[in-house]
């Protein structure tokens, strides 16, 4: 609860600040708080990813992107009422959607009665890997992970294509 409150404060800070450097650092803090929440929820793998990717690498990349642009946010050109309205409506719909979710930690929900239990029961005898997350990611769902790696590959070559300095043609 404290963590969630802190996250809300950080988000308000992100909205209020005009200096983009502050916004990026606050984004990093937000990621660390998110990682702590995931740690509390026993999702250690996701917490590790959030801490290293969200708080570490993406902050550095945002800062290096900021290095290429200006430090301060431009004043808005358009009227801000419509974006606010759309954001409010989307938020309200999402909150409305959470009322349809099962209670927190309840056991007889679809996600617990489908393949999840099967994976947990069979992981060690099938693969001999103690960490079920790894066995699902790399073995049962290896194809999905291949897709994931391909996404990173595509992102990287996309960025190279956009940013790479090419030698100017000499006429």
């Amino acid at each position, binding site marked *: 609860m404290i963590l969630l409150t802190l996250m809300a404060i950080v988000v308000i800070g992100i909205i209020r600040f005009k200096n983009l450097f502050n916004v990026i650092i606050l984004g990093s803090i937000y990621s660390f708080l998110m990682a702590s929440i995931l740690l509390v929820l026993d999702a250690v793998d996701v917490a590790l990813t959030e801490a*290293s990717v969200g708080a570490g690498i993406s902050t*550095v990349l945002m800062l290096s992107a900021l290095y290429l642009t200006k430090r301060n946010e431009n004043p808005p050109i358009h009227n801000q009422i419509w974006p606010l309205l759309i954001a409010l409506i989307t938020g309200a719909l999402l909150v409305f959607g959470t009322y349809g979710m099962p209670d927190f930690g309840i056991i007889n929900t679809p996600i617990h009665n489908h393949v999840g239990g099967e994976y947990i029961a069979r992981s060690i005898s099938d*693969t001999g890997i*103690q960490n079920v997350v790894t066995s699902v990611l790399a073995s049962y769902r*290896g194809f999905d992970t291949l897709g994931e*790696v391909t996404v990173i590959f595509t992102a990287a070559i996309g960025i190279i294509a956009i940013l790479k300095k090419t030698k100017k043609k000499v006429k």
Partner: protein
Amino acid sequence: MRLDVILRIATKIFLPFIFMFAIYVQLHGDFGPGGGFQAGVILAAGVILYTITFGERKAKEYFPEKLFEIMIPVGVLVFILTGVYSLIHGYNFLDYEAISHHGTHGQHLGVLIVEMGVLITVSGSMVTIFYNFINRD
């Protein structure tokens, strides 16, 4: 940049531990949290830390840009070739039973190889993206 003594010494002390931790996260993925993706990011973070502290020119001596660019497709290739290997041996795509038949050895080896592919691609991509950003100034 030349005057940041504390920063440079701290980086020199931390760097081996960062790389060690990346290798630990990579190889310990079977037993605890971690895996190729996280390890790749930690490895890239080490390289980026070195680049920020010691400057671009010195970093590219030890961590050449070309190497990381080549790593991006190599990782994906390692992953795909593992799948093709099991296809050739008459198993399903990415079925690690093809690698070894002794109980769960095949699964262990297969996961290890595949995670290595993920590590190579992820660290290659992250460092390449960073280098491309700082090359632009």
